[in-house]
């Protein structure tokens, strides 16, 4: 019987055939790198399913799904919060207009996520945890992931009536005043600021690491740097708002950023 099944498994990709051969060689050398799915993995899957079923049943017995009064368009909930996984976007509404917070940012995130495999030219560190081989990718992705979590946590736990900031020990009955003294720089300054941020952001990495630019090529480089600059624009804008009360970075007759 021997290794017969292995080779026929993925005949369609040269890549896999080569890899299959490598694996066969390893097997012949006596290294036992493979495990059988029956019953070893199937048993683990089964036990996981049983454990999860128990967890879900206990959870369902202990905590009831919420059910408030019947929907009434006339009486609004204050605060009305989106489901927790969208609360991050709702939190962004504090800092951005709805077309950015609710439409552009999620769309850009999704598109950028899909492009990741095509713009990451670093072939190393595939199939294992290898931080040192992929520092750039890992640092930026994790910061993004963390920001998403932080926004959710803030929106979910720290926002009270009128979407004001309430610490968990503060009572929601205390009315907080709405921020009023917001201002925006004039369009010329705003445009210069944005141009500087994106311009320098595109140029400096190229000068600092020519190697990176050469490996990516112009198209990939532009996409990568643009996505990263867009991503860090979010915390920068939040900082500008919190530290300097800046409402919009750029004001135009058609839209504000």
């Amino acid at each position, binding site marked *: *019987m021997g290794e017969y099944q*292995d080779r026929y498994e*993925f005949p*369609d*990709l040269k*890549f896999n055939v080569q890899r299959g051969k490598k694996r066969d060689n390893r097997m012949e050398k006596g290294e036992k790198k*493979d*495990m*059988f*799915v*029956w*019953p*070893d*993995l*199937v048993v683990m*899957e089964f036990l*996981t*399913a049983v454990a999860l*079923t128990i967890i*879900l*049943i206990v959870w*369902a017995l202990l905590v009831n*799904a919420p*059910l408030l*009064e*019947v*929907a*009434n*368009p006339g009486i*609004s909930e204050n605060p*009305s*919060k*989106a*489901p*927790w*996984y*969208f609360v991050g*976007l*709702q939190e962004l509404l504090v800092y951005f207009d*709805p*077309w950015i*917070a*609710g*439409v552009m940012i999620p769309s850009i995130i*999704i598109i950028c996520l*899909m492009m*990741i*495999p*095509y713009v990451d030219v670093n072939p190393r*560190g*595939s*199939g*294992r*945890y*290898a931080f040192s081989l992929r520092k750039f*990718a*890992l640092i930026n*992705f994790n910061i993004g992931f963390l920001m998403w979590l932080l926004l959710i946590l803030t929106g979910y736990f720290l926002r009270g009536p009128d979407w004001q900031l309430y610490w968990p020990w503060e009572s929601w009955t205390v009315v907080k005043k709405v921020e009023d003294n917001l201002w925006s720089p004039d369009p010329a300054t705003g445009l210069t600021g944005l141009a500087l941020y994106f311009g320098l952001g595109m140029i400096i990495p190229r000068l600092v690491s020519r190697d990176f630019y050469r490996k990516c090529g112009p198209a990939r480089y532009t996409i990568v740097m643009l996505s990263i600059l867009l991503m860090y624009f979010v915390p920068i804008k939040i900082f500008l708002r919190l530290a300097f009360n800046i409402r919009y970075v750029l004001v135009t007759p*058609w*839209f504000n950023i």
Partner: protein
Amino acid sequence: MSRKKSLWKRVRRSQVWRSVFRHDYTDTRRNRILQIRSNIFLHIHPARIPSHAGRIRFTWCMGGITFFLFIVEVITGILLMFYYRPVIEYAYQDMKYLRFDVPFGIILRNIHRWAAHLMIATVMLHMLRVFLTGSYKPPREFNWVVGVNLLVVTFLLSFTGYLLPWDQLAYWAITVGANMIRATPFIGHEGPFALVDRYHDIRFMLLGGTEIGANALLRFYVLHVIVLPLAAAVLVGVHFWRIRKDGGISRPL
């Protein structure tokens, strides 16, 4: 003892048993492979996997758990459909009915709800794991793209389900979401460069009206129980197929 054993043996040798289960449990390499190969449910697995792929340390089991939760949602969701009517006169009443009258109704609804929340968390963790292990690198680029689509579908499934109880929580949470949509550039009536009025914009298309009402409830319901689950099922099929075709679970090259 021997009588019992021989009965068991006779059952397993019977034509009926063997027509269902082709292989016995004898521990041979051949048998272990055939067990997987000849079972339609198990054969989404390869017969053998690299041993690191079976470790929780590597996958966190998050893809598998997400899949399991999806199945839980389908089963509990179908059961809930027996009791729930997506019209505003009944939707909320049916939730009350489930809570107070239907035997085990409250547990059914709770499981559906909590498993949905859990699924969102696990799908995000799964994505994080795949990124951390660099498993999106060639030849698995496309499966990552399929995965991102699954992520979006999972979010939308949860979001559309959120409206169905038709209580204050549901109504106002969906209001928040729907209000963002009207700010879409060009095709939202309050967005920059709006080309359409409030009766012809993308929000109207989603809600079937300018407000969240009977039409919105029906639309969300159809999306939630037919369109999105089908999309998810197809995408999961492609996702699993591609894991195999891309050379099985990723490993160090």
